[in-house]
């Protein structure tokens, strides 16, 4: 594929730019392999990318690496400069930083305040209680496809399920979905760390993302104000009306975290469901194997997350001290990108790393991140993806890819197919 177009001498700088280019979105991995020759590499002024498994593991857990965007040189560039740096939107999730761009102790407190209303030990039943709804939704969408021979797995199957579930959990009215869906699409498209960000289209996307992000924040702020006046049973309402040991979350902070939970609460799930279908169809025998042995599905999903991490990296981190790692010293103040999608294919950790092996053992990948920022919604996402993938495998007869590779979305960070057309014989009962 595109790897043949790679120059003969590829410095980390060039490999990075290539990996970020839109034309390489379907397969950035040859450039990640190039980058990994220097597991911790300086790729631009003040920017270090980490592609080695061991190095990434160490830095994800190093308390001298900050996730607080205000420490990052990227945020400083974005604030006053003309050049759009996509990471600005991470910060612009709201006026107050959300937990994903915060450090302890604020991060820990916010995560506790949110987790109390989402998972064990205080709310052990919420996620399991979603199972019947998720199963029903998947079935309804497949019913709709009856009589057809082609669907877009993204728009017709992967998207509607997680968005409905996260709306129900957070207390966001599902009828507002058309409105916020557009805003979120804009926000994601604005997170562009590649060379296209500097083009006219790139600038336009960035400007639109800024407006849409603000609109989304305003929408959620109004929603939260409503919960303050009239408390309900939803997670967002409980967060701002809590009487737990950490008290209620401030409305501003709740608005930032609401944006985070709403966006991250479905977008990566959509990409993962789409990648499950895509990967299974690309690998002969995989569909049959998983149909015959549904007990292998959970492990196969983890393997999809290894080879196609829904969040390829998150551009929030920076070094608060000089950090010596992987033969490099990351100077204090540098931005540090932990490239999960690259470390997940490190041959020193995973044998035959570019091979999708649904029965892979010892698969401790970074598809959910690592350390204190490990995916908050992982248990919910696992349930959704398992049900959606299992029903797809069982009910869609003889599915085939129409286009391979499918068209991809703009963002390198939240990477997934824009559409995934498949043909099939029929939908079974």
């Amino acid at each position, binding site marked *: 594929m595109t790897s043949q177009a790679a120059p003969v001498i590829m410095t980390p700088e060039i490999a990075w730019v290539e990996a970020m280019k839109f034309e390489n979105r379907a397969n950035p991995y040859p450039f990640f392999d190039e980058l990994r020759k220097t597991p911790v590499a300086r790729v631009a002024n003040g920017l270090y990318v980490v592609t080695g498994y061991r190095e990434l593991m160490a830095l994800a857990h190093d308390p001298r690496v*900050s996730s607080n965007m205000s420490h990052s040189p990227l945020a400083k560039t974005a604030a006053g400069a003309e050049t759009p740096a996509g990471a600005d939107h991470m910060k612009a999730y709201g006026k107050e930083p959300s937990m994903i761009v915060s450090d302890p102790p604020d991060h*820990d407190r916010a995560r506790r305040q949110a987790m109390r209303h989402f998972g064990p030990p205080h709310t052990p039943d919420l996620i399991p209680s979603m199972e019947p709804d998720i199963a029903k939704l998947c079935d309804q969408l497949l019913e709709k496809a009856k009589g057809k021979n082609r669907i877009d797995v993204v728009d017709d199957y992967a998207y509607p399920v997680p968005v409905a579930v996260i709306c129900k959990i957070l207390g966001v009215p599902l009828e507002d979905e058309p409105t916020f869906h557009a805003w979120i699409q804009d926000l994601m498209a604005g997170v562009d760390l590649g060379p296209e960000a500097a083009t006219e289209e790139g600038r336009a996307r960035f400007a639109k993302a800024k407006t849409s992000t603000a609109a989304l924040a305003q929408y959620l702020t109004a929603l939260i104000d409503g919960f303050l006046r009239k408390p309900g049973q939803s997670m967002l309402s409980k967060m701002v009306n809590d009487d737990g040991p950490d008290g209620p979350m401030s409305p501003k902070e709740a608005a930032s975290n609401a944006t985070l939970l709403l966006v991250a609460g479905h977008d990566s799930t959509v990409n993962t469901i789409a990648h499950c279908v895509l990967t299974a169809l690309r690998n002969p025998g995989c569909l049959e194997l998983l149909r015959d042995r549904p007990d292998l599905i959970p492990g196969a999903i983890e393997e999809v997350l290894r080879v196609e991490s829904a969040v390829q990296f998150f551009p929030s981190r920076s070094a608060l001290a000089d950090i010596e790692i992987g033969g490099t010293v990351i100077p204090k103040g540098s931005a540090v990108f932990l490239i999960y999608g690259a470390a997940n294919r490190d041959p020193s950790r995973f044998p035959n790393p570019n091979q999708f092996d649904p029965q892979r053992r010892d698969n401790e990948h970074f598809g959910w991140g690592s*350390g204190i920022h490990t995916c908050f919604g992982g248990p919910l996402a696992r349930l959704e993806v398992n049900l959606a993938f299992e029903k797809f495998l069982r009910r869609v007869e003889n599915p085939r890819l129409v286009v391979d590779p499918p068209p991809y979305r703009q963002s390198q960070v939240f990477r997934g197919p824009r559409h995934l057309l498949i043909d099939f014989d029929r939908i079974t009962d």
Partner: protein
Amino acid sequence: MKTSALVTDLVTEFKTNGRIVIVGASLAGLRAAEALRDEGFNGKLTIIGDEKHEPYDRPPLSKQVLKGWVRADHTLLPRTRKVDAEWRLGVAATRLDRTNKEVHLANGDRVPFDRLLIATGVRSRPWFNPKEAALEGVFTLRTSDDAGRLQAALAAKPARVLIVGAGFIGSEMASVCRELGLAVTVAERAEAPLVGALGGVIGDIAAEMQRDHGVDLRTGVSVEALEGDAAGHVRRARLSDGTTLDVDVVVASLGSIRNTEWLEGAGLATGFWGVACDAGCRAFDVNGVVTDSIFVAGDIARAPHVLYDYQFLVLEHWDNAVFGGKIAGHNMVSLEPDRRPHLPLPAFWSGQFGVNIKGVGVGPFGDEIVITQGSVKDRRFAAAYGRRGRIVAAVTFDHGKWLEYYGALIERSAPFPPPPPGYDQANGIKPIPARFPDPRVPTGFPDVVLTGHDPTARGAEYRPKKQ
């Protein structure tokens, strides 16, 4: 035939027709059995256990089982595969005959072996006075039967529970008692709870936790006698400070004794601290000569560890049993150079008083401690232990996600104190004495002990530290 081909034939022959006996049917024994089958061992496998139960998990016994959430007989270990073994459960091994390669059983049977795994673990140290130990209402906790009986006694709402010994298990039991709304006294001879494993600085924090949760914690005292009523039920305890307590339930939580008696006379390096073996789980004989056919895993194993100056380390940790069992299984059917070392970074966890305590490394190897991250006041923090300028252990209270970082520092003997974190620094980040008691004084047996450099039976004995 070339020698190399002969050796390959031998290995194939052994994997097909060999006889392996595992003595000890708990975590280490089970995982070793599974590893043996994973490695392609198709010969006869016998697993001997003195308890009648199938292998079960012990950590829940002092927590979920005592709380009444899970029945005592509902903690069976998950199986990773079929092991196709002959299970001899409910019958103890009584003797090892190395000359004839046989294990003698309590019922008179003899089980022949080509290779043997010793995984007989430990048992609770009983109350020192047998008459008092026989009183109704006096308990120890190690087995699921113990847990079932103690749970029933707690469910009967005793007026006061006395727990003697404030190690991890004693402290966990005290926590459960408070959650059940029971009045509980904890008597500990040391200055604070958990001092053997974590030192006095952390012990003071653990003591505060206990008192905040309404535990009547008494430190620096021992329980000298238990008194029963006419019906033979325990009713009073006399403490070394002259006080007496009215109690209905007494739990002796005094650490453990290694189950080595059946090995007496076998000529292995066996003693107070278990059975000495090399880093590849092969047992040493009395003279420190490594054996070829006898392997050791789990709580009973005593092996030299590279991270701790090659001192023989004993580890009563769950994952030591899991990984030790796996490595022993692998090495039992492998020859050099395919044998692997079992050199775990020690790791443990405990749940008590609503706090998740986790640790890595060997704290008592160190003599200094520094609180690095979080807040002791909020009981959410990480702390590192040091010895002569290198980091040797770390402990976290509700901060377990940081352990990966400290574990990596310990594995490469990084400098102590570690570099200051970029945020959430604990107040006054500077090393202070960790205040460990002498681990060889039999008052506060920790579950991790460095037992010196001597691989022979003499080294496996208990010897008080020279003053």
